[in-house]
């Protein structure tokens, strides 16, 4: 009896089933951790089954790589602060894509060396695997650099950029096609790989920091599709299934992110968001109101419903724990506090939810934009912390605004709007926000963490006095 033909397909099928279940259980926070466990079981099954295959005879290298990979992976998972999760995700897309591309490279040279096995269908899959693998590798490294702020976050554009990018991609695809037709022309291979690597870099250069959630999701999709293509090369259905799940997941998340910004894929990739606003009109001084932490605390204390709208600036200021303290104190004083999360708040899909969950905010208080907006007119206070564009009414009223049509959290409908902000300077995106000049808006100037600390201190004093 040959185990490879009888038992192995069953093991691989069970592994694929585990991955499907893992994603299914991510539907709800109640079952999500079970999803992780079944995912781990699937991975262990797949690895164990593969190690038992008769063609795997040389174990030393594999063992060393396993030990090193585990040793590097554990500290990354535990040391990484939650604000850095987008960077880690980009980094792990880079690792996954590079692994896929390297396996493709090894398969290719093996095939050329043996002079057989590289049928045109295998070559199609190999070229797709390597094209996506190499370009995702460098693109993810670039995304990592921008998120880690070792590279400039501003989009870098130059004249004819789209033509250059398109040209490089066409050249890579053309050489790939030549290799599919004539796999033995191995001299072309390094050129193909270099062009794909170069394209990944060029792809990310014109993309600004605000678009990172979409880009990360898209790269997630590419990395998955690359793994799926590997499944075609190796005739392995489990790989095809797992890669396709990853590919569709990233794709859907990218679509959700685009919708949340009212932009198309092509606009994100080729539009160089953030350039337009450099010419934004410098507005003349308009009147606005501001208040002290004491006054802000009084207004909050007198409210029945408070909707907090956090943006990435809140996380940069590390204000989420103070925010949680405020949430608790107000809760004890009978104020209902909820958090309205815009889909693009934070730097990757769902990032803001994780940051608030880390600060122990119960997740049933985290509300989606579409659920909160109808209730906004009933909110006594909308408290905006580190968010700007996602509450800018200009998106609804000004068709000329760079963010026109973007769905926003309708903070302006609340009875009182309070905005914690360093100064009246327009933020990173540089778009003027009429919300700040509305008669029912109160500006709270200062660092988010420091200001919230003062509010918390004030509320605590009131609580004790009562």
């Amino acid at each position, binding site marked *: 009896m040959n185990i490879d033909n009888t038992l192995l397909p069953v093991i691989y099928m069970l592994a694929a089933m585990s991955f499907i279940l893992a*994603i299914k259980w*991510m*539907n*709800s*926070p109640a079952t*999500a951790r079970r*999803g*992780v466990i079944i*995912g781990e079981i699937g*991975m262990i099954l*797949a*690895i164990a089954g*593969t190690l038992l295959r008769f*063609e*795997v*005879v*040389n174990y030393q*290298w*594999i063992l060393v790589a*396993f030990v090193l990979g585990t040793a*590097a992976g*554990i500290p*990354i998972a535990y040391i990484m602060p939650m604000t850095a*999760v987008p960077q880690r995700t980009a980094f*792990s897309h880079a690792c*996954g894509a*590079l*692994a*896929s591309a*390297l*396996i493709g490279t*090894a*398969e290719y040279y*093996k095939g050329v060396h043996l002079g057989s096995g590289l049928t045109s269908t295998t070559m199609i899959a190999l070229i797709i695997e390597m094209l996506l693998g190499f370009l995702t590798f460098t693109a993810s490294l670039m995304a990592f650099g921008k998120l880690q702020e070792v590279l400039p976050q501003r989009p870098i554009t130059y004249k004819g950029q789209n033509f250059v990018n398109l040209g490089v991609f066409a050249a890579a695809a053309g050489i790939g096609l030549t290799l599919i037709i004539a796999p033995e022309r191995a001299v072309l291979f390094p050129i193909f790989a270099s062009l794909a690597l170069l394209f990944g870099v060029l792809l990310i250069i014109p993309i600004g920091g605000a678009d990172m959630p979409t880009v990360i*999701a898209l790269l*997630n999709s590419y990395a*998955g599709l690359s793994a799926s293509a*590997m499944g075609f090369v190796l*005739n*392995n259905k489990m*790989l*095809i299934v*797992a*890669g396709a799940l*990853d590919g569709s*997941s990233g794709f*859907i*998340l990218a679509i*959700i992110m685009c919708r949340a910004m009212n932009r198309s894929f092509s606009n994100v990739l080729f539009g160089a968001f953030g350039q337009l606003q450099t010419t934004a009109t410098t507005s003349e001084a308009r009147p606005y109101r501001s208040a002290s932490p004491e006054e802000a605390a009084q207004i909050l204390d007198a409210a029945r419903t408070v909707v907090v709208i956090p943006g990435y600036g809140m996380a940069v200021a590390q204000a989420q724990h103070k925010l949680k303290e405020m949430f*608790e104190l107000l809760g004890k004083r009978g104020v209902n506090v909820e958090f309205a*999360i815009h889909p693009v708040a934070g730097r*990757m*899909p*769902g*990032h803001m*939810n*994780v940051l608030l969950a*880390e600060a122990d905010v*119960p997740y049933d208080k*985290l509300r989606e934009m579409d659920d909160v907006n109808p209730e906004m007119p009933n909110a006594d206070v909308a408290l905006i912390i580190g968010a700007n564009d996602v509450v800018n009414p200009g998106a609804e009223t000004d068709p000329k605004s760079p963010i026109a049509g973007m769905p926003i959290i309708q903070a302006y409908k609340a009875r009182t709007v309070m905005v914690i902000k360093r100064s009246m300077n327009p933020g990173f995106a540089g778009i003027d926000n009429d919300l700040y000049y509305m008669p029912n808006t109160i500006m709270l100037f200062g660092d988010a963490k420091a200001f919230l600390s003062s509010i918390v201190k004030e509320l605590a004093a009131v609580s004790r006095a009562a």
Partner: protein
Amino acid sequence: MGQYEFDLWVFMLAAFLGFQLIRGVSPLLHTPLMSLTNAISAIAVVGAILITGEKDASLLSRLLGFTAVFLAVLNAVSGYLITDRMLKMFKRKEPEKR
């Protein structure tokens, strides 16, 4: 039906299944979802093991395969662990106060 065609059908069905499943995931969990699918796509380790462990693999193959195993294991380990770390933080009720 040829192997290639069969694989294409598998891909198509899995992609549709993926679309259906992911659409049901609440935005609350999109970040853990992405790190979980990330870990799952480390299944590329299977291809890497096959390349590295072969009897007559060239040195180039072994080196490429070795690197790929390392990268995939790194992704799988850190991906699953960080997903679980994130999910542990999602609590419905206030933790009990002392």
